[in-house]
């Protein structure tokens, strides 16, 4: 038990350092941004017609005249007191904005995560088991093709086919336009989430399937599979009993590591589908120089990704008998 606590403690310290680093990098990138917040958000014409006092007030609002170090420390101080600041664009607390958008995205991201994980595992195991034969070639060809396809382009393609030509799915947003919030049904939400989820899944599957295939091939060439075959276990039994079992451990790592890719992919995909999720608001915050919001989003998504990896580590300890029993005997 003691070393579990030590492990968790070390991880928490590492997480704090990571989040600090991520926020500093984000802040520096924003400082280096060539966009002038006033011109972007207020507009050249409007600025020209304003009195110097009004411009000065706007500059103070967007923090243009505050030295960068002071701005960052101000933000950090607030965060340490539990205050993530107020979004400059939305004029709402950052946490509220993120909370709303995350609620929109979470369903989408979770669906993608589960779907691409399971399908990727199945395809990878199948490809490994049929190594060199046509199912393997088909799956590998698909994975390589998809891996080299830009996500946003795939999103546009699906939009073109399924929304424009076939008209099966709505063209964008997460709910129908012009419908009162309480009149939106669950089915409406699903219909709006299908295409973005599909895009992210199609790309997510490729990576997981290719990695799983490699591992599956290693397992099938191992001594213990040779012995299982020598003892008369059928090929199905070898794949299901030994293959899946031994592929499942790296699959856990892979599955939780894919959290970062899905969140990263969602930024582009939500943009294409005008899906008002966390990814889209990240783009808005970046382009609109909304520093508190962008910092908030980066820190929170980093924390989610970190938590994913942490869960993978902990699950590994529970799933691998060599770690589980090894720890129990100490």
């Amino acid at each position: 038990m003691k070393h579990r606590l030590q492990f968790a403690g070390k991880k928490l310290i590492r997480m704090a350092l990571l989040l600090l680093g991520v926020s500093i990098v984000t802040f520096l990138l924003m400082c280096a941004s060539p966009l002038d917040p006033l011109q972007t958000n207020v507009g050249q014409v409007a600025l020209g017609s304003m009195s110097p006092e009004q411009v000065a007030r706007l500059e103070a609002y967007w923090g243009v005249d505050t030295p960068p170090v002071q701005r960052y420390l101000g933000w950090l101080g607030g965060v340490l007191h539990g205050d993530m600041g107020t979004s400059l664009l939305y004029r709402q607390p950052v946490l509220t904005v993120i909370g709303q958008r995350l609620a929109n995205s979470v369903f989408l991201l979770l669906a993608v995560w589960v779907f691409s994980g399971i399908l990727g595992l199945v395809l990878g195991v199948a490809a490994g088991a049929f190594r060199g034969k046509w199912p393997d070639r088909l799956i590998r060809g698909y994975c390589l093709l998809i891996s080299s396809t830009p996500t946003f382009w795939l999103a546009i393609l699906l939009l073109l086919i399924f929304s424009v030509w076939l008209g099966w799915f709505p063209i964008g947003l997460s709910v129908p336009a012009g419908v009162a919030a309480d009149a939106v049904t669950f089915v409406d939400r699903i219909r709006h989430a299908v295409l973005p989820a599909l895009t992210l899944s199609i790309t997510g599957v490729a990576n997981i399937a290719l990695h799983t295939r490699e591992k599956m091939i290693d397992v099938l060439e191992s001594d213990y599979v040779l012995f299982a075959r020598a003892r008369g276990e059928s090929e199905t039994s070898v794949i299901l009993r030994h293959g899946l079992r031994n592929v499942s451990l790296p699959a856990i790592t892979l599955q939780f590591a894919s959290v970062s890719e899905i969140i990263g992919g969602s930024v582009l995909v939500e943009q294409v589908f005008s899906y008002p999720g966390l990814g889209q608001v990240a783009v808005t915050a970046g382009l609109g120089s909304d520093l508190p919001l962008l910092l908030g989003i980066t820190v929170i998504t980093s924390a989610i990704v970190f938590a994913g990896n942490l869960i993978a580590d902990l699950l590994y300890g529970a799933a691998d008998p060599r770690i589980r029993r090894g720890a129990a005997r100490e």
Partner: protein
Amino acid sequence: MEPILEIEHMSVYFTQYERGIRRRVLPVIRDLTLSVEAGQIVAVVGASGSGKSLLAHGILGILPYNSHMEGEIRYAGEPLPRERSAELRGKEIVLIPQGVNYLDPLMKVGAQLRKGSRDEKVRERTSRALRRYGLSEETEEMYPFELSGGMARRVLIASAVTGIPRLIIADEPTPGLDVRAAKRILGHFRELADEGAGILFITHDLEQALTVADQVAVFYAGETIEVASAADFSDVENLRHPFTRAIWRAMPEHGFHPVSGTQPYPGSRETGCSFAGQCSASTETCRETDLIPLRECCGGMVRCLHPGKEASL
């Protein structure tokens, strides 16, 4: 007595691709002939890389996909095609592998030996087999990493006797064991042979092979070069092939003379005796004759044009 296993002119080839497109067929076992009778232990002795393990995989029908096999294998008098060995392996024909690596690291020992069967009879047979080698019920609940080296080896032997095996192929079952531990393991083999099983004991250790085997087949670069009874090894004059004589002299109690040179890689030699490069008695004909046949010679078999000659060391 009717042989349980007869192998005649068995060859195993691997197909390799060189630089992507050039296909190359590599012979790793050439023209192998040997037979095992019920109740008999036949040792196959050869250096590592001589293709011994592939012999085992060939009999079991589990050669890798990029290989193919020629020649004839007969089991209990009947031909043994791949489908037949698929039916028999794990039941009548069993493999005892080298070590703990051959157990699935993530599966408990008991579950592994039961091969997924939930049958009460299978459970009973498995624990009986483990008990026979002094392994308690607790062993069944252990993962392979929790076994000691000796336990792992006993588990592997126990795996062979969950049924009633008629042919046991032991592939280097005693590496890294001290003499006493190895003797105990070999004692188990003798016991299994006395119960009526034929045993093919694959090893690189001639000394160990002689302590337990009835017959010894000497393997060199993928060929059987001599088949001799264990008794023949009491006197070097009884041995037929220069290589066998050379390894006899390399044994500690016979002077520890090393055999100079190394065996050729598979596929590196086209014609002639594979030992010619290391044999001082070799002549022009030894190097040029295409595939010297294995022939009867003074109660054993030998693949040599000048049997009984010494390779001077």
